[in-house]
């Protein structure tokens, strides 16, 4: 229950039509798919408020502080973390009305926007002006504010790094209601937003992976890139991970390609299949490992890099299959434009797995890629959920991807099972398989970083020193403890 005085104050701030404690409105903020495994039941906020300006956000924070009411900022709400599901009730601050693109600086190739501009909108506007932002590993309906502060992957990460490296500066309302700007935006008088560091110790990443605990992003400047002459997706197929990985690693060392990921098991089929059965049939005839690469650049660069890719594929017993794929054009379109089609047909629903998001996501050094894929296959062959590896039950299919960050000094490994997210059988299989997978990979030396996703208490830990420091800073920012309380359970960090 929200105190009537709180609701009245919120209505005064945003207008009575944009603040309510009606349970019928609140319930819409009570669930994402990860809530299956996190809570078992769904949790509504006590009230919802929709600010439209930074000063409204500041005033709402002041009210929450005064009444010591939990405050949960909500960006796109598209996450695999239950990050915005209120653990302890309180106010959901839905930033939906803050959806303006404030400026596109064509000289600095940056864009400044409010938090609720979707990736799709931002891409459209930038491409109109001859620029692009990397397509994220998320639906393009995700907002820039959410994705850049909490997302990782994109389809050009080998060349540009993960999403957060595109943050130039942020404007945040801190939990005490004050306004912080970072980078050159911190200068109260210049208005320049083009430089991402400092002044002095770099606080640009204050909102990054902070799940709202450090404040509310009300503005963000991001880096874009000039459109290249050519974008060429190219896929190499391999039957053995021992062939695929060296080719992959050598390409990374040669610093060619804009994007690169190694798919094993099931997932690559899912992009082109529109039913579960279709995905299964495709998986029967498709090669076991696929190296999905994108080459971008001038004509000469693309020609050169394509030649190297073909040579390295050939050298490692692979073959280029892109030329024959019926759905090839989809990749050409989506690599430069929107992730929608990639995440549309089948993958989004099924790969999500019960609990949403890959079951495992962890950073790995380049030499651990082969052991990770092998562990997945071995585990799957021992697990009844998968049946026979070659004739696997399509309902629960194992899969894994490795994708490197900028320059390829490490890769992120995603793994899990793909199944219909509401299928009780799948949930059961998931609950049995995922802890096994996490343990198997941890034995190799690859640890999950899914604290924010579907990892449950007791599944992994973070060093106490790190947590102590994080808690110190959180407390320095929010001594009252109003911001998204309970979102990070101490139980998770044994």
């Amino acid at each position: 229950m929200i105190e009537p005085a709180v609701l009245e104050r919120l209505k005064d701030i945003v207008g009575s039509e944009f603040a309510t404690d009606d349970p019928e409105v609140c319930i819409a903020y009570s669930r994402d798919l990860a809530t299956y495994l996190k809570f078992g039941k769904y949790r509504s906020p006590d009230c919802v408020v929709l600010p439209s300006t930074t000063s409204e956000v500041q005033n709402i924070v002041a009210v929450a502080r005064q009444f010591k009411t939990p405050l949960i900022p909500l960006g796109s709400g598209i996450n695999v973390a239950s990050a915005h599901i209120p653990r302890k009730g309180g106010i959901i601050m839905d930033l939906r009305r803050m959806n303006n693109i404030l400026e596109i600086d064509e000289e600095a190739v940056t864009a400044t926007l409010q938090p609720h501009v979707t990736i799709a909108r931002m891409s459209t506007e930038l491409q109109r002006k001859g620029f692009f932002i990397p397509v994220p590993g998320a639906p393009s309906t995700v907002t820039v504010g959410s994705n850049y502060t909490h997302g990782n992957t994109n389809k050009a990460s080998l060349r540009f790094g993960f999403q957060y490296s595109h943050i130039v500066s942020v404007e945040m309302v801190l939990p005490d209601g004050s306004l912080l700007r970072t980078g050159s935006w911190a200068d109260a008088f210049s208005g320049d937003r083009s430089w991402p560091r400092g002044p002095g110790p770099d606080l640009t990443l204050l909102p990054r992976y902070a799940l709202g605990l450090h404040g509310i992003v009300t503005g963000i400047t991001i880096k874009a890139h000039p459109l290249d002459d050519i974008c060429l997706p190219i896929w190499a197929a391999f039957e053995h991970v021992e062939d695929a990985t060296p080719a992959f690693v050598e390409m990374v060392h040669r610093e060619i390609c804009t994007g690169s990921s190694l798919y094993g098991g099931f997932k690559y089929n899912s992009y082109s299949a529109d039913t579960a059965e279709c995905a299964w049939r495709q998986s029967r005839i498709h090669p076991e490992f696929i190296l999905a690469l994108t080459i971008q650049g001038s004509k000469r660069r693309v020609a050169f890099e394509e030649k190297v890719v073909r040579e390295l594929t050939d050298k490692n017993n692979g073959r280029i299959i892109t030329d024959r794929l019926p759905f090839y054009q989809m990749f050409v379109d989506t690599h430069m434009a929107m992730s929608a089609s990639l995440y549309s047909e089948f993958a989004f629903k099924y790969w999500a797995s019960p609990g949403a998001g890959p079951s495992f996501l962890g950073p790995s050094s380049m030499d651990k890629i082969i052991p990770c894929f092998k562990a997945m296959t071995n585990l799957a062959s021992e697990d009844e959920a998968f049946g026979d590896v070659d004739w696997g039950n399509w309902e629960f299919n194992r899969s894994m991807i490795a994708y490197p960050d900028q320059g390829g000094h490490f890769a992120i490994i995603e793994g899990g099972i793909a199944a219909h997210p509401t299928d009780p059988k799948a949930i059961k299989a998931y609950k049995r398989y995922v802890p096994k997978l996490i343990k198997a990979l941890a034995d190799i030396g690859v640890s999950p970083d899914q604290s924010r996703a579907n990892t449950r208490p007791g599944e992994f830990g973070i060093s106490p020193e790190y947590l102590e420091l994080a808690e110190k800073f959180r407390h320095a920012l929010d001594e009252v403890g109003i911001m998204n309380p309970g979102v990070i359970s101490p139980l998770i960090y044994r």
Partner: protein
Amino acid sequence: MAQRKKYAFPANRESLEDYYDMTLSCYKCGYCKYVWPSRIQHDKFTGQCPSGEKYQFESYYASGRMEVVRGIIEGHLKWTDRLNHILYTCTMCGACDESCGQVERVYPTDVILEARRTAVKEGQILPGHQQLAKSVSKHHNLYESDHADRNNWAKGLADVKSRSKIIYFAGCTTESLKPSIAKSTSKLLKSLGVEFGILPDGWCCGMPLFDTGQTDDGVKTLKHNIEQIRDTGAETVIFSDAWCYKAFRDSKDYGIELGFKVLHLTEFLAPYLAKGKLKFDRGTNETVTYQDPCYLSRYFEVYEQPRDLIKSVKGVTLKEMYRSRRESFCCGAAGGVKFQFPEVTEHASSTRIDEAKHAGLSKIVTACPSCQISLEDASKDNGMEIYDIAEYLSEGLKKTKK
């Protein structure tokens, strides 16, 4: 908690509980809220949910409504004004279905419609919608018009026929509020030498009753019309109104086999146009745009026929708005919304007019009287001209050189 059922085909679901897994299947990917990303034309016009755009709370978008329905099924939510407001401000335009069908396949309007039916079963009928049922029951139309006047428009243009291979079903909105559409349609048909009749006792098609969960009343009035048509021995029925068209096209959902072909006027005219039997000249060079009626386009994929007809008019250039075809933005009239929450209709149609203006357009052609009316209402002070396609074409017919 309701038993989870796995993946039953929507048509096989019988009660709201049967939709529980669909509500759970939604995990907020957000595609239902926006124009399909790769088809965005302008960053200012990316929303596609009329009620969500107006009220902004998650509950007013398809994804939020899935939670609301889950709340009803699980017994967390009781029937309240707010609940009804959330359920009944959806225009059933199907934009969310279009996106969701490509992603998660929840088909939100199916779930919302079932929730409305449940509401009605539990005595939750909103005054505006109750009035509709009363009017249909008493006057056999939505507008309390005198039933005897229904065919007034037809004098000298069309005849009631006891037997006719082709029947023109104008619908009560056209008859009561936009008779010019019926007149224009008749002129078009006559210009082609088409022999057609109209029904002696046509009633409301029932679509707004279906949309508002009053299924039994809807079936009653729909059946009456079907029987009348069968009595004429008609093989084809032509519609001006996308609502009526949908009511008949969906009849199988209510266990009714029609036994005759259902065509929108634009579908009927298309073959004649292809054969070169239709030529239009409005005597002017102009650029117009086309508003897709949701119940014609998204539901039944009648996208190209009206466009081909408009493009065939001499001197006319068809320019699309930023959101068109599958991504078209609803005028806000459908789903029974305008009878209970006209402010939603006003907001949606004003948004659409803004879009047309932003794209530099000043003339909109549509193919449904309800779209025409709501867009006209939003154009009173801004000079936007709104036409029904029958009117637009028949005016060109006058100047056709034989």
